[in-house]
């Protein structure tokens, strides 16, 4: 407890520094803009912020990322409600009821519901992060290579189990795994698939791959989809006096959805979008006003917004304590951690406790600032979201190229980014999950290294002596088989 309090105070101390505090505010504002802009996802936004943090120390850099990550999840709801153009994929659920309320002239009520639910969910997520990340990190000290292999395998297979299209997710993961083998073998030192080029010796750097997949890929996709079709509809002026909700009236749905969101956030590959859909689905079944869902239900907005916000805190638990990203944005954060020479896991909690606790407090404070900026700046965010795409797209492209170049001052990385931009576009076009490629690439390294270490210790028999690892492997097999059973069940029903 004393250790916790000491580090907690260290975290508070970091946030009290005026520069860090300013960074937090910038992060919140930038995050809301990212979220409110259709075509900019949280993962893409955080990836584009990375180059700006090269000169920053790790604490302010991660305060910026965390604030932007959390607030972008809220930002998506603004345009989802007012112009029916979800700024982020997870806010698509919010648009169902939010835009209906806007059509009825109650857009202020919808925005207020989304804001309060987001902040509530975010605070619950932050609280659960603090409560669980530390014990998980403490437990992680006892994990060996077999358990880490099991965790990586479960992380990958859960993407298949929770994904909308399991086969496509499996294909994307396999592609990520293949890509992770490129470079110098970390154990034997042999060259693998380098085609004799020294540029491939270190394998693919995560940041160019992610910037390409999430940012450039999205730009190419928008270009092909004809971005001009995104017409901005006029916001109907408020014609009712009801503009605010009382939290206590929606406490049950807020608590349940926040807990669901946090739990789904912990599962690798599930992410905030799935959290929103599941919470919304559950709320619509349990609600006393079922008939209102889809026609402008405040409860519906509360369910989806609190779930997608709380998933941020949940997703940070496996990332910080085990190094397993829970979502695409967390994969970007993992890349940022390695860029700042930080290794997630138990060591991060002991050697960089000030950073970890700063992240905890930044997540809390970010939610408070979201409430503040969300209350005063909705009109501003809507205006910003109307930046024409023929200006926004070249800005994103230039940020992608410059950001990638600045990583290692390497033109080759720019080509990598461009190549993955094409891959990201094709994936988006044919509905393959880009995040699964990144998870394959990140977890592939962890998977391979720990499998080989385990085999070197005592062959395959080593796994039989590790019950934790065996349990994770069994869960992984179930995750792979589950979609097949689901399909058979659906066929027999129909």
């Amino acid at each position, binding site marked *: 407890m004393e250790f916790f309090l000491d580090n907690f105070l260290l975290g508070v101390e970091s946030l009290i520094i005026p520069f860090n505090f300013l960074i937090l505010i910038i992060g919140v504002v930038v995050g809301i803009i990212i979220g409110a802009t259709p075509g900019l996802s949280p993962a893409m936004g955080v990836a584009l912020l990375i*180059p*700006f943090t*090269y*000169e920053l120390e790790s604490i302010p850099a991660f305060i910026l990322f965390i604030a932007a990550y959390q607030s972008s999840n809220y930002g998506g709801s603004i345009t989802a409600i007012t112009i029916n153009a979800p700024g982020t994929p997870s806010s698509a659920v919010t648009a169902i009821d939010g835009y209906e309320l806007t059509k009825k002239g109650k857009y202020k009520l919808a925005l207020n519901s989304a804001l309060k639910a987001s902040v509530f969910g975010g605070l619950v997520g932050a609280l659960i992060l603090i409560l669980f990340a530390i014990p998980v990190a403490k437990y992680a000290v006892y994990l060996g290579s077999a358990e880490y292999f099991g965790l990586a395998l479960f992380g990958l297979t859960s993407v298949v189990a929770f994904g909308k299209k399991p086969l496509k997710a499996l294909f994307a993961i396999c592609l990520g795994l293949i890509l992770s083998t490129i470079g110098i073998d970390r154990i034997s030192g042999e060259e693998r698939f380098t085609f004799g080029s020294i540029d491939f010796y270190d394998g693919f750097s995560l940041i160019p791959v992610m910037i390409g997949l999430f940012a*450039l890929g999205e*730009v*190419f996709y928008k*270009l*092909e*989809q*004809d*971005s*001009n079709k995104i017409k901005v509809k006029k916001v109907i002026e408020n014609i009712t006096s009801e503009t605010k909700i009382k939290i206590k009236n929606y406490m049950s749905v807020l608590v349940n959805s926040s807990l669901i969101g946090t739990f789904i956030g912990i599962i690798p590959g599930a992410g905030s979008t799935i959290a929103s859909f599941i919470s919304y689905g559950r709320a619509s079944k349990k609600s006393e006003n079922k008939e209102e869902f889809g026609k402008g239900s405040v409860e519906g907005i509360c369910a989806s917004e609190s779930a997608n916000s709380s998933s941020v805190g949940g997703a940070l638990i496996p990332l910080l304590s085990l190094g397993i990203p829970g979502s695409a944005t967390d994969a970007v954060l993992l890349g940022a951690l390695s860029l700042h020479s930080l290794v997630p896991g138990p060591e991060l909690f002991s050697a960089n406790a000030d950073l970890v606790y700063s992240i905890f407090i930044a997540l809390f404070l970010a939610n408070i600032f979201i409430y503040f900026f969300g209350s005063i700046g909705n009109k501003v965010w809507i205006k910003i979201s109307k930046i*024409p*795409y*023929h*200006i926004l*797209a*070249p*800005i994103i*492209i*230039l*940020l992608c*190229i*410059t950001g990638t*170049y*600045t990583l290692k*001052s390497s*033109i080759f990385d*720019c*080509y990598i980014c*461009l190549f993955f*931009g*094409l891959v990201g*576009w094709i994936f988006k076009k044919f509905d393959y999950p880009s995040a699964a490629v990144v998870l394959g690439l990140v977890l592939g390294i962890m998977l391979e290294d720990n499998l080989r270490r385990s085999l070197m210790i005592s062959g395959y028999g080593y796994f039989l002596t590790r019950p934790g690892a065996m349990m994770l492997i069994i869960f992984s097999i179930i995750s792979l088989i589950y979609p097949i059973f689901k399909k058979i069940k659906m066929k027999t029903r129909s």
Partner: protein
Amino acid sequence: MRLNFLNKLKLENVFLFLIFSYSIYIFLNCFSFIDDNTGTTAGTFPKYISFSLIIFSLVLLFSKKELNETNNFFKVLLSFLAIFIGIYFSNYLNFFINLFFVFIFNSFLFQSKNNNIFKLLFISLIFVASLYYVFGVFLNINFPGFE
């Protein structure tokens, strides 16, 4: 999708744009650009600038003539090519000038209305200059084409 803007784009506007970009290049060249291979400024730039401008104007004209009859898939490839050329020529030409061309070209690809070309040039110039000051000056990162 029809690129009305490119159809309405007058030839003199294209020339104006070329002259404008050429003068920016000279401006940057005088103050910052030194060729890595020869260490000179004035002697090397005409070759590179003329080469890149020829390619750029060809692509621009090509888009103007052909884009109407093609689908958006072709636009993605054009955007990809423009970025690729921009990155490739970073080895020979100032990095930020390439970015400027990439900005302009991609902006053309994305718009459908007859927008103000000078407004676009102004925005792109301001943005590229900001990028240079943030990364090149403030973060002190070395870019190709700069010492």
